[in-house]
């Protein structure tokens, strides 16, 4: 994969010479003999009088030539093909970075794209842009794979027949002309919510040209409720930007702001900053209260979590608002103490509500924040990023009334995700001409109207554009590559309709001067930035020549100081009745988003195979139910033996619990049927500890029917339950067990630490009292880590760790929220393949870094802690001693390195790894389609060309039968070292500057929880963190000296809250020092001590 050559036909003069053979081979008689020998047969040789000796000599030479010079296994001829004219900036083999942005429904995301030889290979956050620290999330990381998805829509189609782009361009011209006569009556657009000023400007232009046109937008997971609430209580079209970093007390009402709530990135960064105040003298670490139905990552980070049905949260918010008005008086202790804590932090507290919560709750949140004086402090109110448009419901009414004759469906996928009662599929058929513009040919494309056009969309990395960021910052977007399959952008469609078609230069004759005449294009010419420039001119208020300002804008990726100013306002009262409290026996269904967002990433293998953060479920969705509901329905969970089916406590109460059944169960998970408002959905049930007892959570986006190879047959469609009335949750749902089972691929089968203190936590108070606590947990308290003279696993050929730089890593469990961005970043950086659902069930997933998730406390209402685990680069690595072929050895800078080409696949190393971080290529995942892994030689060989284009050229693509693992991004280390050598030249200055480069997981981490660097340099961040009192190494008592260490987590419970005594006590603190080796089972021992706290 490193280099790829297009082998051209051999040149006429392309003879090869081999010093050793050319003498003999060049003789004419020998050549003649070679040519004659096989066709003519051996009998001839006798008559030619060849001696036996000659025969052998010639045979030997001809075989040598056949082997080395002519055909067969000779060295392949490779070509070096330089440019004829070098493009600016391109240095062969070096990467370039360009600023761009990713459109997202709640504000675009500033990115830096890494480009190699014209191919974008990786996306990362733009560290210079406001609201960004260079971190990004799973979608930004996964988007690069979407660009190269071989299943993307590639052809212009009319009624299913392939047509040319010109046909469509002509159709647009015809439509523009015909709708010009009736002011656009009957013309309608349905788009996604995309905060792009250029699109909105073009929309305005269209509205001028066709005053009667209808423009609707629809997002299944938008922030419409928040905007509607602002309209009600603030009296304007506003939305909020929450400043998590400024808040000391945060209350989340069903808001998973650290994960599935889109725009979570700034939230993670701000929240982590609040956690990091632990290290600052005189500063206060933040405290998080969460009230939610589904156990989310936010709930896992919470200091106090209250399980509650989503439908009850309205009443909770009302009670809380009343309690705050009353100075903290409430019947419920939880609410009264919470209210008191919020009041005590007026102006430094923050209340947020989830997007699925109704308008009333959002309105109440505005009121509460207003009461607490948070507005303008921790809550900034800014104008909404998108303009008001028709809703999909209004559009459907118009279509049903026959008022729409031509409908453009630009992006989105309403046939899949529109509210169920609208029956979008039937509605769309009623429109005589439908123009569908999409990245994939999907459910909406499949609907046939009288005339249906399918137009391939260009990916956001293929087009010019602009967008507003989350806080309104104006961001640029530039193409990284020409459209791979000739897709066109929305801008191209709209400008064509507007008649703003750029005149295109006629193809220049070779060598001729620039042509004077230009002709109008017949199809879509290559996109130019002129329409975005026009918008830029207006927003940046540049007069005259914009060239310099534009260049700066595109280079930086954003316009400085362009964020929306916050509006000073206060909330009015909101009188509407909130949702009724649930009756004891009724169930509710809540919808959330997991790894594939609203379903748009279902064909993205990286995101599909990424374990959902809480359930560790891949490739599917399931109904998440509480242990109590599972018991009530009598569900027989695979692997369950005791207590009630499927739920088996491993450790004593008070330490850790194991709830999920064993990995890869062949029996399957039981199916349940959910009925809501006459609509039913049958899907597998999965027990989720911490789920509210009367609530069932289902991830949307799965169960798509018209999609490419990867997403086919993945999950169950929860949109079929969702109606306009109930977009966030449905109450009054009935559930029953039905026959059948379904296999789910879950990556983490074991949720208990078995008392070994892998992930460690404590309360803020105890952390202050006992700074050395982290070394007193689990086995560490009995057997301290490596000391000089301590018997190591191997000593004889212990590598000398004498290089000038020594690499190490620290992961701060206090700020890591478990968002999984590191897993995808690692996958993109290190060419890690996906293995498919069946192989995940077999436990063969390939992620180099994983996020372990442990539960502690009671099964019904546990606490959660996450811990990213990658290769620890042990100094005394157990894997190295067992490798029979020296394929894994130690480097002098402390890396446990893998030489893939030496590996023969014994897998001894994986068996001997205490952290289980080594991954084996059981199949040639890069070479075979995932559904043909067992076909042997019959399988189709090779991967799609475009997938190859994504690979990082600086990392080997591994073949079948080799072991692989985290390398600390050795390609980045070596690049940094070599760069330093280039700078050093003839000086001895070869030490890389501290923190001048990052590993991929460190770079992506929005919480900055992962810190990598040179531990020998006292100035580096990682060295400083290694001296932190919370620093500990996992399983250090094995004497293997891992280079990665962790910082223990600190929880910040409010002592006055009910249940506060249980928070942060999962890690049992044992005796100080060593010497105790006659203890019984560690868990029992641990819990006994743990209960004292």
């Amino acid at each position, binding site marked *: *994969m*490193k*280099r790829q*050559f297009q082998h*051209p036909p051999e*040149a006429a*003069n*392309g*003879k*090869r*010479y*081999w*010093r*050793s053979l050319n003498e003999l081979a060049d003789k004419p008689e020998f050549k003649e003999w070679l040519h004659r020998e096989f066709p003519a047969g051996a009998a001839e040789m006798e008559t030619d009088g060849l001696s036996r000796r000659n025969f052998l000599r010639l045979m030997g030479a001809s075989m040598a030539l056949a082997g080395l010079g002519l055909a067969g296994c000779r*060295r392949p*001829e*490779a*070509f*070096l*093909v*330089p*440019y*004829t*004219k*070098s493009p600016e900036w391109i*240095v*062969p*083999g*070096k990467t370039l970075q360009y600023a761009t942005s990713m459109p997202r429904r709640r504000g675009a995301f500033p990115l830096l794209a890494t480009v190699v030889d014209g191919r974008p290979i990786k996306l990362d956050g733009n560290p210079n842009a406001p609201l960004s620290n260079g971190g990004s999330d799973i979608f930004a990381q996964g988007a690069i794979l979407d660009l190269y998805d071989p299943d993307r829509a590639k052809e212009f189609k009319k009624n299913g027949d392939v047509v040319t782009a010109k046909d469509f361009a002509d159709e647009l011209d015809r439509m523009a002309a015909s709708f010009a006569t009736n002011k656009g009556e009957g013309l309608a657009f349905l788009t996604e919510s995309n905060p792009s000023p250029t699109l909105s400007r073009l929309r305005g232009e269209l509205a001028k040209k066709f005053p009667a046109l209808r423009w609707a937008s629809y997002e299944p997971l938008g922030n419409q409720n928040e905007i509607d609430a602002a309209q009600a209580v603030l009296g304007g079209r506003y939305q909020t930007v929450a400043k998590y970093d400024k808040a000391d007390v945060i209350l989340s009402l069903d808001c998973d702001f650290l994960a599935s709530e889109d725009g979570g990135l700034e939230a993670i960064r701000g929240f982590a900053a609040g956690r990091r105040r632990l290290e600052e003298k005189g500063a206060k670490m933040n405290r998080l209260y969460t009230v939610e139905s589904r156990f989310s990552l936010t709930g896992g980070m919470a200091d106090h979590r209250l399980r509650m049905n989503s439908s009850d949260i309205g009443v909770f918010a009302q009670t809380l608002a009343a309690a705050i008005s009353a100075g903290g008086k409430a019947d419920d202790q939880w609410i009264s103490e919470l209210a008191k804590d919020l009041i005590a932090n007026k102006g430094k507290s923050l209340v947020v509500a989830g997007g699925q919560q109704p308008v009333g709750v959002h309105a109440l949140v505005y009121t509460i924040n207003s009461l607490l004086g948070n507005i303008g402090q921790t809550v900034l109110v800014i104008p909404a990023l998108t303009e008001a448009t028709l809703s999909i419901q209004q559009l459907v009414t118009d279509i049903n009334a026959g008022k729409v004759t031509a409908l453009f469906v630009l992006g989105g996928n309403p046939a899949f995700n529109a509210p169920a009662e609208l029956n979008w599929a039937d509605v769309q058929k009623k429109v005589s001409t439908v123009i569908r513009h999409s990245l994939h040919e999907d459910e909406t494309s499949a609907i046939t109207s009288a005339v249906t056009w399918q137009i391939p969309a260009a990916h956001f990395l293929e087009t010019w554009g602009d967008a507003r960021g989350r806080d309104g910052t104006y961001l640029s977007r530039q193409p990284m590559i020409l459209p791979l399959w000739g897709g066109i952008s929305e801008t191209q469609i709209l400008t064509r309709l507007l008649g703003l078609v750029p005149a295109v230069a006629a193809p220049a004759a*070779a*060598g001729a001067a620039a042509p004077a005449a230009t002709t109008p294009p017949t199809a879509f010419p290559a996109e130019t930035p002129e329409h975005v420039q026009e918008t830029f001119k207006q927003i940046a208020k540049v007069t005259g020549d914009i060239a310099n300002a534009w260049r700066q804008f595109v280079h930086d990726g954003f316009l400085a100081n362009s964020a929306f100013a916050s509006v000073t306002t206060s909330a009015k009262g909101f009188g509407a009745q909130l949702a009724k409290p649930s009756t004891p026996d009724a169930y509710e269904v809540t919808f959330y988003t997991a790894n594939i967002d609203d379903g748009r990433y279902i064909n993205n293998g990286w995101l599909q195979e990424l374990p959902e953060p809480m359930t560790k479920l891949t490739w599917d969705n399931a109904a998440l139910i509480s242990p109590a509901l599972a018991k009530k329905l009598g569900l027989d969970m695979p692997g369950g033996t005791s207590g009630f089916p499927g739920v088996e406590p491993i450790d004593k109460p008070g330490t850790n619990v194991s709830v999920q059944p064993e990995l890869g169960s062949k029996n399957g998970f039981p199916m349940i049927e959910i009925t809501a408002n006459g609509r039913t959905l049958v899907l597998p049930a999965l027990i989720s500890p911490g789920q509210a007892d009367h609530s069932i959570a289902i991830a949307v986006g799965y169960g798509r029917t018209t999609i490419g190879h990867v997403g086919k047959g993945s999950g169950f469609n929860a949109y079929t339950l969702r109606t306009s009335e109930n977009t966030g949750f449905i109450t009054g749902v009935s559930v029953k067990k039905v026959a059948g089972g379904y296999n789910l691929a879950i990556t983490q089968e074991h949720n208990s630490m078995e008392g070994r203190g892998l992930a460690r936590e404590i309360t803020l108070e105890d952390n202050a009292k006992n700074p050395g606590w982290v070394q007193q947990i689990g086995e560490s308290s009995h057997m301290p880590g490596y000391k000089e003279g301590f018997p190591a696993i191997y000593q004889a050929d212990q590598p000398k760790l004498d*290089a*000038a730089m020594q690499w190490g890593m620290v992961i701060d469990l206090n700020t890591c929220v478990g968002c999984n961005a590191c897993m995808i970043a690692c996958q993109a950086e290190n060419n890690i393949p996906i293995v498919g659902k069946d192989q995940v069930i077999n436990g063969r997933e390939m992620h180099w870094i994983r996020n372990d998730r442990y539960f502690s406390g009671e099964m019904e209402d546990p606490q959660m802690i996450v811990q990213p685990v990658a290769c620890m680069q042990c100094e005394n690595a157990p894997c190295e001693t067992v490798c029979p072929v020296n394929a894994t*050895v*130690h*480097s*002098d*800078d402390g*890396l446990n*390195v*893998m*030489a*893939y*080409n030496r590996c023969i696949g014994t897998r001894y190393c994986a068996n001997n790894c205490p952290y289980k971080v080594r991954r084996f290529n059981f199949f040639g995942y890069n070479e075979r389609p995932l559904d043909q892994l067992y076909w042997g030689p019959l399988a189709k060989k090779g991967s799609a060309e475009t997938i190859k284009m994504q690979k990082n050229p*600086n990392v*080997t693509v591994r073949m079948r039968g080799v072991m692989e693992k985290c*390398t600390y991004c*050795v*390609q980045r*280390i*070596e690049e940094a070292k*070599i760069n330093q*050598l*280039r700078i*050093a*030249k*003839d*000086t*001895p200055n*070869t030490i890389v500057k501290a923190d001048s480069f990052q590993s991929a997981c460190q770079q992506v981490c929005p919480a900055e929880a992962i810190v990598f660097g040179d531990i020998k340099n006292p100035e580096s961040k990682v060295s400083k963190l290694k001296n932190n009192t919370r620093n500990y190494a996992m399983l250090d008592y094995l004497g293997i000296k891992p280079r990665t260490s962790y910082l223990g987590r600190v929880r910040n419970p409010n002592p006055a809250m009910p249940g506060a005594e249980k928070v942060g006590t999962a890690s049992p603190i044992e005796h100080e020092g060593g010497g105790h080796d006659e203890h019984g089972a560690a868990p029992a021992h641990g819990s006994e001590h743990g209960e004292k706290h």
Partner: protein
Amino acid sequence: MANIFPKSANFLPIKIGLGLSVIGLLVVAGVWYYFTPKYTRVGYQPTQPVAYSHALHVGQLGMDCRYCHSFVDQAAHANIPNSQTCNNCHKEGGVQWDNPKLAVLRQSVEKNIPIQWKQIHLVPDYVYFNHSAHVNRGVSCVSCHGQINEMEVVWQDKPLSMGWCLECHRAPQNNLRPLAKVYDLNWTAASEGKNQLEVGKQLVAEWNVRPPTNCAGCHR
């Protein structure tokens, strides 16, 4: 009943065994010797699409390596020059423009068709060699490519095998030279009346030269 096999047949298994082991030894010895890069790679000298002579351009005209291989000190690859670079001198009305030997270049410049040079120095895909790390630290082109400045047609002069790389990585003093002399392919320590080993040892110490000898230095 007469014996079917003569008595001499008793020794047949031994003879066969001996014969087979001799053949086996020969095969092993043959593979050992002939299948190494030292034998299979060195001397590879393909005919290039343009008969470019390093001996003429560098040896006689004294061009610097970096005029054409312009990124050799900046990047991993020592780039092959683009047609534009050749065209700087061999332009219309310039040096040798009408020479039939430059037909491929003319076609490339006029019709924008890249020239397909045959790759001679090819290391396996899992080897990540970096030119800039070497030429910026006193390893001359000549150490790996031989006297390119004297070659009419370039051939592979060194095996470029891992063992060969390690020879130098373990003892860099044998090949280091002052930075000013890196692109001077005729320079030797002896030409200045010095001893290479002494020069090399001094540079290793002065520049803190520590070439990697672990796997990750080249394999990622």
